């Protein structure tokens, strides 16, 4: 049995507005290191909600969550921010780059926040990540001057800058054409196979899901299939 990267136990969450309804019902989930997991399901089944709970950003839930064998439920917001900074990378459907900064700066900011490397080292590393996605020639342009596909690739490079143990994606390829989707998928696979990074993505793209290691199917706030 491989080591656990993320373990959720009996997660239950309610939405209170306008009426209290359960969106996640007693969900338990175990993802081990180096796994590439896709979460699929119909719109409104709670898969994105689950992802945000797993990401530590949403703290309004019942149950418990362990990341890399450490219980994170109940930690302070600032402690959670540190955990996200160091060990979780995010890719969203929209790139959410900071438009006032260059692409390079956008990629560097999380690493500068972490503060483990010198400015120079961070810069080199950011270049390296941009190169992986073939956008190194855009490095010094302002983020809002790039095309949509390039922006998304820069955003993924940003998610990887701190070599996070877990990479989470909320429809990471939702805005990309098939060519770019292919590039991103290959890279994700490489990250999990070669670097042992864990990937958890929520997706509508059946093709993308099918090619990942495991598909978790969700419906009505419950897991229908763990895909094992």
């Amino acid at each position, binding site marked *: 049995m491989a080591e656990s990267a993320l373990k959720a136990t009996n997660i239950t969450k309610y939405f209170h507005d306008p009426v209290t309804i359960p969106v996640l019902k007693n969900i338990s989930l175990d993802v081990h290191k180096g796994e590439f997991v896709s979460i699929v399901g119909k719109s409104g089944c709670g898969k994105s909600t689950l992802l945000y709970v797993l990401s530590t950003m949403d703290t309004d839930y019942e149950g418990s969550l362990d990341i890399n064998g450490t219980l994170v439920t109940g930690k302070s917001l600032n402690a959670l921010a540190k955990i*996200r900074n160091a060990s979780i990378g995010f890719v969203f459907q929209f790139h959410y780059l900071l438009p006032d900064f260059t692409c390079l700066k956008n990629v560097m*900011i*999380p690493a500068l926040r972490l503060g483990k490397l010198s400015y120079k080292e961070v810069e080199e590393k950011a270049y390296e990540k941009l190169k992986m996605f073939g956008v190194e020639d855009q490095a010094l342009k302002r983020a809002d001057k790039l095309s949509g596909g390039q922006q998304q690739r820069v955003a993924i490079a940003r998610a990887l800058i701190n070599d996070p143990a877990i990479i989470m994606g909320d429809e990471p390829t939702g805005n990309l054409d098939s060519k770019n989707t292919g590039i991103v998928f290959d890279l994700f696979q490489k990250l999990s196979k070669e670097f042992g990074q864990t990937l958890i993505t929520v997706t509508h793209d059946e093709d993308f899901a099918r090619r990942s290691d495991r598909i978790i199917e969700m419906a009505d706030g419950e897991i229908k299939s763990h895909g094992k």
Partner: protein
Amino acid sequence: MKISVNTEIALTYLSARKKQTAVASLGVMFGISMFIFMQSLMKGTNDYFEKMSFNSTPHIRLYSENKVADNHILKGFLKDSSVKMLTNPKQLIQTQGLNNPYGLVKEISKYPRVANVTPQVTAMVIYTSGSVQINGNVAGVDIDQENKMFDVQSNMVAGNLHDLNRVNNGLLIGKGVADKLSLHLGDNITVTSGTGSPTIMRIVGIFATTIKQIDETKSYANIVQAQNLLGKDRSYVTDIKINVKDYNSAPSVAKDLETLTGYKAEDWVQANEQIKAAFKIRAVILNSVIGVLLLVAGFGIYNILNMTIYEKIKEIAILKAQGFSGPSVTSIFLQQALFIGLLGGLIGVSFGYLITLMVSHIYIGAGTLKYLPMSFYTPHYIEAIIFGILTTVAAGFFPARKASKVDPVTIIRG
């Protein structure tokens, strides 16, 4: 220099919106420069009026008051059965001088809070030159001590005040007296007091204060001359003028001296109540204007940061998703406010100095007041910067706190 990532983000946001940053800084700049200008003007004016009032009035004047004697002590002691013998200065000739004046001077100068003490003989006189006569008064003084206390030298327009000690029968007259009698330096003048015989004196100096009333009546003579004028002996002294170390303590010192000597001790606050009131009114006007200016500047910063936060709310959410904690986000926005405050403050200080410098060259030309009195007082500049930074930080605090409370989940999920 290594700058933190928070600072870098703050600076990037500021430089990405140069116009807004400039407008906010301008707001602070105006606030600060007006603060400095108003403070300098007020301090300059207050200092000038204080100096003026202390040029003619001592902090405390000790003199014998003409007063109808009252009987309340006798009444308490002897009850109603007694016959009261009261004196009235109209009917009974009293000496107007102080008893043992030089003893008093010696005693008072031992008093620790007292800086300077000088005796004076005041004589009501008539100045005569040819057939023209005008009323006035002669202050018989020790001119060196007088100069030390009231800076007589700064009012001199002709002659040398030290000649009062050298020239026999020397007299310093006001410019108004000189003009009315058309007298010049070195001319003779006849001075007659109510009690003494007419004396011919020589004009050794002419002075001009800004106060017409003084210039047209007053003159200085050696104290012995004044005693001679009045036909009095060497122990005749009408006033003792006292300057204390801290002029704000004058009222309490005056009270002590009254108890100690039994004579009337009038402090400068009593003598210049209108000046004191003017100081207070000016301070209220000044502080309210400055308060409003800083408030407006503060609102400018508050507004601009609030707008930035609305615009950047998604970016804040992303920063938080990437592991920026609440305090980091607060620091990003507070640093923007602080930078605006510093920039506006520094420009404001230089601008304030320039305005002050320019205004200090505005010609007024009333009496000894040639230019607008402005003070260049360093603590004002330090205060201005501190106030500016406090205002901007206070104005930035609420938007920054709001930014730190952005919930990334609700923003990113829409």
